[in-house]
């Protein structure tokens, strides 16, 4: 493995020198015109057909978030960031508890719930969405497909020629180089999207430092997850070679440099994210709990607690995080979080019920009844009202 890898890395480095870019575009493909649809005879039409199918699935998916306030915000944001594509871009919010957003070549944009709870301001969300809009505007999917086709074609021919030598490494080499080239091309697209996404962010009047801030957050959370550096040097080299995106550290640094060179907006940028999330955020937080990544989730929730207007939701999620891990004293810790939730703004009624059921199990029936009553006060139409009334009567 090792000598082969070194050889291919060396070859990839040689080839990387040959890659040229046209000014302003990492792919050499023209920026998409407003209202564009590809001709049915082109390779791009095939890519759009796939994207149209995926979009229909997304539109009908039970995982799509249909909350009107949140959808109104993302639609408005997309048009602020790209007025010229306002009629071509269709944002969808989806309930996927990871940090990501995607842009399809046909103009469908999906914004994941995990991003929505990690972004702390509208500007931070706009930074990621602006990046995705650049993928659309610059037709990166088409560019990547053509690049992959060229590279695999060349590799197939060279691989066949290499096979005539009867030496396995020589026959394999073109394929390894192709993978490296394809991924390097993808990283260039990402850098272009970071840069142009940043320009869109600033032009729309958002906070310039938000782009770097969001990457800083992701790095901090990653560090919280891995308390020690577990990757060996070799692992890291391989990962850099095959990665589709530049390392987060690099992205934060370049975006920070761009922000430092840019004037702050003259009017304070809009920040409607928290208000738009009111109806759905608790669900998103509880999806995060279900990921079973205790350290990262705990770090995220503690970070959110710093200045959140609805800490009751976050205390509740922290309580759930401990209750579901169920190690040693976790039930006690979770109960203390549920108590904190009950006294904080934004407490979900379930926080009262959680305190009540844990207290009940511990034999503290009077205290439990008090919280069952508070639960029914907070949720008079609760589906389990009869059951709770039964507890109260016993």
């Amino acid at each position, binding site marked *: 493995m090792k000598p082969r890898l070194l050889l291919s890395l060396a070859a990839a480095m040689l080839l990387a020198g040959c890659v040229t870019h046209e000014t302003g575009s990492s792919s050499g493909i023209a920026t998409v015109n407003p209202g564009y649809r590809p001709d*049915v*005879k*082109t*390779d791009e*039409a*095939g*890519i*759009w*057909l*796939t994207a149209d199918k995926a979009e229909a*699935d997304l539109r*009908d998916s039970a995982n799509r978030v249909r909350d009107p306030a949140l959808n109104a915000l993302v639609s408005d944001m997309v048009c602020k960031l790209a007025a010229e594509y306002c009629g071509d871009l269709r944002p969808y919010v989806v309930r996927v508890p990871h940090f990501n957003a995607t842009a399809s070549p046909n103009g469908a944009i999906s914004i994941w719930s995990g991003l929505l709870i990690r972004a702390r301001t509208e500007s931070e969300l706009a930074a990621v969405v602006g990046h995705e809009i650049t993928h659309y505007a610059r037709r990166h999917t088409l560019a990547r*497909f053509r690049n*992959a*086709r060229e*590279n*695999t*074609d*060349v*590799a*197939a*021919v060279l*691989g*066949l020629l*290499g*096979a*005539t030598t009867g030496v*396995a490494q020589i*026959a*394999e080499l073109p394929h390894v180089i*192709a993978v490296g080239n394809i991924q390097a091309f993808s990283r260039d697209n990402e850098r272009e999207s970071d840069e142009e996404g940043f320009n869109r962010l600033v032009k729309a009047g958002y906070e310039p430092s938000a782009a770097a801030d969001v990457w800083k957050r992701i790095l901090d959370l990653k560090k919280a997850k891995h308390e020690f550096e577990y990757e060996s040097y070799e692992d890291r080299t391989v990962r850099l070679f095959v990665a589709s995106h530049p390392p987060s550290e690099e992205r934060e640094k370049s975006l920070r440099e761009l922000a430092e060179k840019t004037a702050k907006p003259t009017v304070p940028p809009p920040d409607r994210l928290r208000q738009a999330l009111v109806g759905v955020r608790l669900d998103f937080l509880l999806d995060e709990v279900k990921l079973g990544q205790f350290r990262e989730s705990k770090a995220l929730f503690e970070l959110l607690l710093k200045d959140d207007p609805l800490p009751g939701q976050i205390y509740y999620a922290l309580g759930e995080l401990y209750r579901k891990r169920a190690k040693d004293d976790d039930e006690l810790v979770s109960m203390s979080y549920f108590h904190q939730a009950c006294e904080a703004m934004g407490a979900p009624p379930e926080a009262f019920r959680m305190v009540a059921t844990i207290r009940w199990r511990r034999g503290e029936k009077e205290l439990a009844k008090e919280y069952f009553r508070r639960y029914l006060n907070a949720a008079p139409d609760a589906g389990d009202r009869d059951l709770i009334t039964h507890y109260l009567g016993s």
Partner: protein
Amino acid sequence: MFTSFRLVLVAALALSVSACATRTLSTTDKLTRDVAQPKILLMPADVELSELTAGGLTELNADWTLSGQRNLKAALNEHLAKLNARFSEYQPLAQDDPHYDTFQQLQKLHGVTGINIQNYAFPPAPGLPGKEGKFNWALGPATTMLAESTDSQYALFVWLRDSYTSSGRRALKLAAAILFGVQMEGGKQVGYASLVDLKTGEIVWFNLLARESGDLRDLASARESVDTLLTGLPQ
């Protein structure tokens, strides 16, 4: 892995694919006749036509796919008419129709079930342990919605992926054959037709098509493909 060894492997697989055009799994060879002439609901076919690039990527071709869809639809209608079957095409529902979600879910469920039957129910796959060698796959009771809203007893689902060798790939195949005497993989036609009893939700007949020939880009070839795909359809 040594490339030429991989080529041999691919060639062996290709041979095993071409040995038989269709294979059938079924629970019956006759339609249940609770009504004198059971009606078959023809579901929207899921079809994609692609080009196999020299490097081995499958590149979806929109133009071919659109004509493939048209030809397939016409050929399916002709075939069922030839069999004297009573059938009707499913009419797509509006998004605010109360049945819309159930319909979409059934389409998706059949897609997933079809893939699993393809992958696990046909040898050389060992079969799923829970199935104990039986062919018993079902979409569940929600299919009654289709029966009631369209007055049908059966639904026919068709899924097809057709790929064609690009000129670059053809040149490469030729070179591989001359240099090493091996047969590189080319375009192929894979897919299935599946008949569902809407009363029980059971898949009563499943025909798997896998071959290195067949075409959907013109109507005559599409007819041949549909005749092959629907060989042995219960009547």
